[in-house]
C-alpha cells in the first residue's frame, strides 16, 4: 500500500502541477460575440490582465476605475491589455453594459454568466487578477486594496 501511495505521489510530482494555462472556455462579450480564452488572447509577448469583477463588488469597481485611469500611461511603457471578466449572474448581468459605458471604461468585457471560467480557475473571492503572457499564467493576485496598482505595474514591467 505504502508503495502505491509513494508511486502515486511521484506520479503527481512529474505532472505539470498547477494551473499554468488558461482553460479552453469561450465567453461572450457585450456585443454577443464569442471569445475563446486560450486563442483570442495570445498575441506574442503581450500582457493580458484578466480582472474578475461584478457590478455589485465595490472593491472590484474601485480597482477597474483606477485601472481605467492609469492604463493609457501603462500602455506607453508595456504592451498590455485589460480584460474585465464580469462574473455577474443573470440577476445583475443587465447592469454590466450601462455601468461599463456609464463609467466610460475602455476595457474588453467578457460575460462569465454561470461562472464557468471563475470555477475552473478555482477563484473563490473577487476581485481576482490573473496575468497571462504568451499563453502562460505568470501572476495571480487575490483581492484589491487601493494603491496596489503601483505594485502591479512594477511586477508587469519585470515580466
Amino acid at each position: 500500500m505504502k508503495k502505491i501511495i509513494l508511486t502515486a505521489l511521484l506520479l503527481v510530482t512529474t505532472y505539470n502541477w498547477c494551473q499554468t494555462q488558461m482553460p479552453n472556455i469561450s465567453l461572450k462579450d457585450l456585443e454577443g460575440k464569442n471569445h475563446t480564452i486560450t486563442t483570442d488572447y495570445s498575441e506574442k509577448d503581450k500582457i493580458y490582465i484578466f480582472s474578475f469583477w461584478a457590478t455589485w463588488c465595490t472593491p472590484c469597481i474601485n480597482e477597474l476605475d483606477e485601472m481605467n485611469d492609469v492604463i493609457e500611461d501603462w500602455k506607453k511603457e508595456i504592451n498590455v491589455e485589460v480584460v474585465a471578466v464580469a462574473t455577474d449572474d443573470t440577476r445583475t448581468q443587465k447592469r454590466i453594459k450601462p455601468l461599463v459605458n456609464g463609467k466610460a471604461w475602455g476595457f474588453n468585457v467578457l460575460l462569465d454568466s454561470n461562472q464557468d471560467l471563475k470555477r475552473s480557475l478555482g477563484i473563490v473571492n473577487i476581485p481576482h487578477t490573473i496575468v497571462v503572457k504568451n499563453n502562460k499564467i505568470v501572476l495571480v493576485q487575490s483581492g484589491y486594496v487601493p494603491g496596489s496598482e503601483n505594485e502591479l505595474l512594477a511586477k508587469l514591467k519585470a515580466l
Partner: protein
Amino acid sequence: MKKKIIFCSLLLSLGTVMAQEKKSNISGGFENNSQWYLNDKNLFDENLLPTQHPEQPFRSNSYLFVNYKIKNFTFGVQTEGYYDKALLNLNPKFEKANIATYFAQYKNEKIEATLGYFYEQFGSGLLLRSWEDRALGINNALRGARFVYKPTSYLTFKTLYGQQRTGFEVSEGKIYGFDTDFNVFEALKKENSELSVGFTFVGRNEKTTLVNPNFTNLTYGIGGRFNYSRNSFYASGEYNFKSKDAVVQVKNQIDNNLIKSGSALLFNMGYSKKGFGIDGTFRRLENMGFYSERLANKNAYNDMLMNYVPSLTKQHHYNLANIYVYQSQPGIILNDPSMVKAGEIGGQIDLYYNFKKGTHFGGKYGTKLAVNFSQYHGLSGDYFIYNPQDFQTKFIGFGQKYFSDINIEITKKWNSKWQSVFSYINQYYNKKFITEQYGVINTNILAAEAIYKFGTNKSIRAQGEHLWADADKKNWASLLTEFNLSSKYTVYVTDMYNYGNDEPELRQHYFTVGNAYRLGSTRVSLSYGRQRDGLVCVGGVCRYVPASSGFSFSINTSF
C-alpha cells in the same frame, strides 16, 4: 506485488512523457470556512434570551477540488467535509466528509460531452440553473450526462439528463433538458448589431406517492428568448411557461386539489454610450417555484432548487442597507383573505452618468453618478380561499405592494490620494408579505465612504452609515474602518449599533474585528465578533442565519 510495480512504473513513465509534452495538467482549489461559536450573555435574541453556542461549538466547511486535464479530456473531483457539523443553518444534509461531485469531460471546438456532475444554465435560468454558492450552501449540480454541440460559431445545441445533487445524494426527480441558441445576425454576417434567439425545454419527472393524483409525474417548462442590440441601444426578452403541477403552499404538503401552471416574463432594454447608461427591467412571475422534488418547495435551504428567480433589486454593499433585503416571491399562498400570493410583478431602472473631467461637476478626476429604482407588487386578480381554493390573476395588474428601493450614489475622486462616495437609500419593506411575518417598514439610509491612499501601497477606508426606520428594530448606526497596510495585509473593525430599538435590552452592538492576508491566489482571514440574525444574501438568493458570537476563520487557495 510485481504486477502492481509494473503497473505503477508504466503509469509513472506515461506521466513523465505527458509532463514533458506539457499536455497534461493538474489544478484545483481548497477552501475552509470555520466558526467557533461562543456563549454571549450580552447578546439577546427577539425573545430576550442570551445567545448560546450550539452543542458542537466548533464547525467548519471544507472544499477541495482537483482537476486533471490531458489533451481534450478533463477529469475532476470535489470532496467536501463538514466537521463537527456544517456552519449554522446550512442544509443539515451536508454532513461528514465525502466525495461531493466528479466528472469526466471531452471537449473540442465543436463538441463537449460531460459525464458525472455538471453545472448548467439555460437562458437567464428561470427554468433551469445549477450552480454552486458555498456561502449559501447551494450546490445543485446535476449528475448525469450533458452534450453540447456547436456546429458553427453562431449555433449551439445543448441536451442533458440528470438528477440533482442534494447533500451527498441525488434527487428522486429526474431532469431532462434541451436548449438552443442561434445568433441570427452573425449567420447573416450583419455587423455592428446583434440578434440572437433561443429556445428551452426542461422536464422533471418525479413519481408521486399520492394514490389518486390530479397531476402527472412529468412537469415541463418551455421558454423562448431573444437578445437584440444595435449601436447604443439594446433589448432582450424571455417568456417561460411551466406546465400544471400540484401546488405546495405549506412545507411538506402537496396540495392535490390546487393544480396550477406557472409563467415567467422578463423584459429588459437600455441605452448606453460613453459616459452614460440607462437600463430598465420588467419581470412578472407566477407560480415559478421549481424543484427537483415537489416536496422540496419552500424549504429553507434552497435545496433541490432547479431554477433561478433572484430578486431583481440593487445589491447594496452597505451594512445597513442589507437589513431589509427583498426576496423574490415566486410562490403561492392562499391562507386567509389578507394573505394571498401567487407571484410578483415589478421592475427596476438603473442610470449611470459620468461627469467628465474638467467640467464643473467633474473636477480634475471626474464624478460618477449611479441611480437605481426598483418596485415589486403582488399579482392582482381574484383569489378564492376555500371551496375550492383557486385564483385567476390579471396578466398586467399591480396588487399589494411588497417592496421599493430608490437610491443614489455619487463617487468623487478629489485627487490621486482621496476618493469619497455618498449614498442615499429609501426603502419600503412589506415584512408581512415578504417573510410571512408582520409589519411594514419604511427606511432612509445615509452613507458616506472615504478612501485615502498613502505611501506606495497603503490605504485607509472609512465608512459611516445611519438608518432611520419607522417600525421593527427602528434606528441603526454603523461604522467601518479598514487599514490596508500593504497590498497583502488588511486589518478592519466594524460596528453596527441598533440604538433605536424600542426594547432597551435589544439596543445591541454587532461588532467585528478582523484581519486578512493575501498572497498570490491564497487568502487567509481571521475575525472575532457578532453576527446579526437575518438574511445572508448572495446574488439575490438568501439564507437565514441566527445571531451568533465567536471566531471565524477562513482560507482559500487555488493551484
